[in-house]
């Protein structure tokens, strides 16, 4: 982390708690990391270790009655996301930082066409007419590799397959040219071939538009090939982080070692 200017997102001592009947549950504890411009930062950990809570915290998406960010700072382009007002936060969401969710089938509104939903995101953040926004949506669908985008833009989410939906989701995420995409287990509901396609697409977008990606996953095999940096999470804490190659080849924490051992067992099969 020598060049400070190229750091896009900097999370410092972030803690998030969910409210439960037994009292507050610390989902994220004192987490710090930096994401550089144009880098892929992978967050690895088992289910329930706080990966999603961390991702939602960055965009302040945890509903007020469910949980709260209890401490820390999130600097995005030098701006503290935790101190700005909700109205300014809305301008960051989608336009500067976009989110790709785990279940593409549930993430789209079932009663609107795909094209309309992408166009809505465009009109929310850019002063464009509805028609222009729709043609932008079609262009984006073409860019993420969907055949016949003019026709597909007029279809509803249930007419899409899982992989296509995730591509459309990515199209929606990149349509306002954000600087960072948070991909929360983008491929965990997809088959292996589709998974490769989606990851290739993300890597290609990173190269073309210099978008940084926070890739949240439980699959170390994905991380080893694609991520520049990796952080391993357990029980809401980051155990170790650093250059992907270094961590994979020379893990220092026993938990990371066991993760790598299990991952290599799977890949041998």
């Amino acid at each position, binding site marked *: 982390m020598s060049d400070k200017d190229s750091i896009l997102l900097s999370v410092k001592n972030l803690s998030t708690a969910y409210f439960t009947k037994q009292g507050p549950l610390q989902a994220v504890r004192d987490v710090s990391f930096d994401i550089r411009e144009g880098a892929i930062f992978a967050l690895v950990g088992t289910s329930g270790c706080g990966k999603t809570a961390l991702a939602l915290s960055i965009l302040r*998406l945890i509903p007020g009655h469910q949980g709260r960010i209890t401490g820390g700072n999130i600097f995005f382009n030098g701006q503290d996301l935790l101190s700005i007002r909700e109205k300014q936060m809305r301008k960051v969401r*989608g336009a500067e930082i976009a989110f790709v*969710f785990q279940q593409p089938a549930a*993430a789209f509104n079932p*009663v609107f066409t795909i094209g309309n939903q992408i166009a809505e995101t465009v009109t929310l953040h850019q002063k464009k007419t509805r028609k222009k926004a729709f043609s932008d949506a079609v262009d984006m669908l073409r860019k993420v590799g969907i055949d016949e985008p003019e026709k597909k833009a007029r279809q509803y989410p249930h007419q899409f397959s899982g992989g296509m939906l995730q591509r459309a989701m990515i199209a929606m995420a990149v349509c306002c040219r954000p600087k960072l995409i948070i991909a929360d287990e983008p491929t965990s509901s997809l088959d292996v071939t589709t998974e490769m396609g989606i990851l290739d697409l993300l890597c290609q977008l990173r190269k073309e538009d210099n978008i940084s990606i926070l890739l949240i996953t439980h699959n170390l095999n994905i991380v080893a090939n694609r991520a520049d940096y990796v952080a391993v999470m357990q029980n809401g804490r980051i155990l170790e982080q650093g250059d992907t190659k270094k961590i994979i080849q020379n893990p220092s924490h026993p938990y990371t070692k066991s993760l790598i051992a299990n991952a290599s067992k799977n890949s041998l099969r």
Partner: protein
Amino acid sequence: MKKVTDNNFINGQQPQLLLKRPLTILCLAIISSYFLLAAFVYVAELTRWNPRFTQWDKKVGAEYESPNGKNILGTDYLGRSVLRKTIYGAKVSLTVALFASFIGIIIAVPLGALAGFYHGIVDDIVVWLCTTLTSIPYILLILAFALVLKDKSLDLTWLGLGQIPLAGIPAVCIALGFTGWVGICRLVRAEVIKQKQLDYARTARSFGCSNFRILFRHILPNLYHILIVSFSIRFVYYIHAEVILSFLGLGVKNAPSWGTMIDLARQDLTKGCWWEMTSATVALFVISLAINIFGDTLRDTLNPKFIRLQRIKYKVTYER
């Protein structure tokens, strides 16, 4: 991708399913003919065209004439045609039901949506309002409304409609609309609570939508099927309510409605004069039945879960 194909089946088949059943088409025809009749009476009144069968107050024969070739449904105690009164009654009933349903939905949907979406004080106020309203007998409320609105009139001269007196049909509409919205409000509230936790609402938020936009632009369109079905149920309820109110003498005055017809015919039944009671009741029965069956079909076509259930049922019987 089993789920996706299932959805495909449901949404791809919707319009066809609605028009495939002969019974549904029949119901739709009945409902539209009632509406056409009501519209016809309105047009005749507004244009002062005055065709024969809207002149319900004209003496057409002897008193208590039983159904015959000249007066198909007979005459009442003043020698007026029962058929004409029944047609005029359709106008009153449908107007009341339509406007009362609209008033109810206009009040219920925003209140229910806000209560479901925002926790805390907004929810408390709306729920309190609902419980309070349900605890007051609605006939008392309607009496109060009728009393208050008796001499009032709505000034619509700026629309070129002149002064509209609020007594009579408008009073019944307002009274029913203001007392009957609680059920829809509760339904909308519960459904919004469910929908706002779904992923698409979170996606909308993560792309920068405001609360207001999420609620009215994303969640409400997902409630349309519920609103349509509850509209059809409320509609029948309001037709009945109008009849009951008129029967009790609280409803429409100086014009025949099915309720007043039944009320008057009650005394005539002992004289063996059954036709007035029968025509009003049958008119009421037919439209209620048609709307109910149509509402059922709407629910079948608009509720994905129900279709899936039906399909499984068919499959099981087939395999046996």
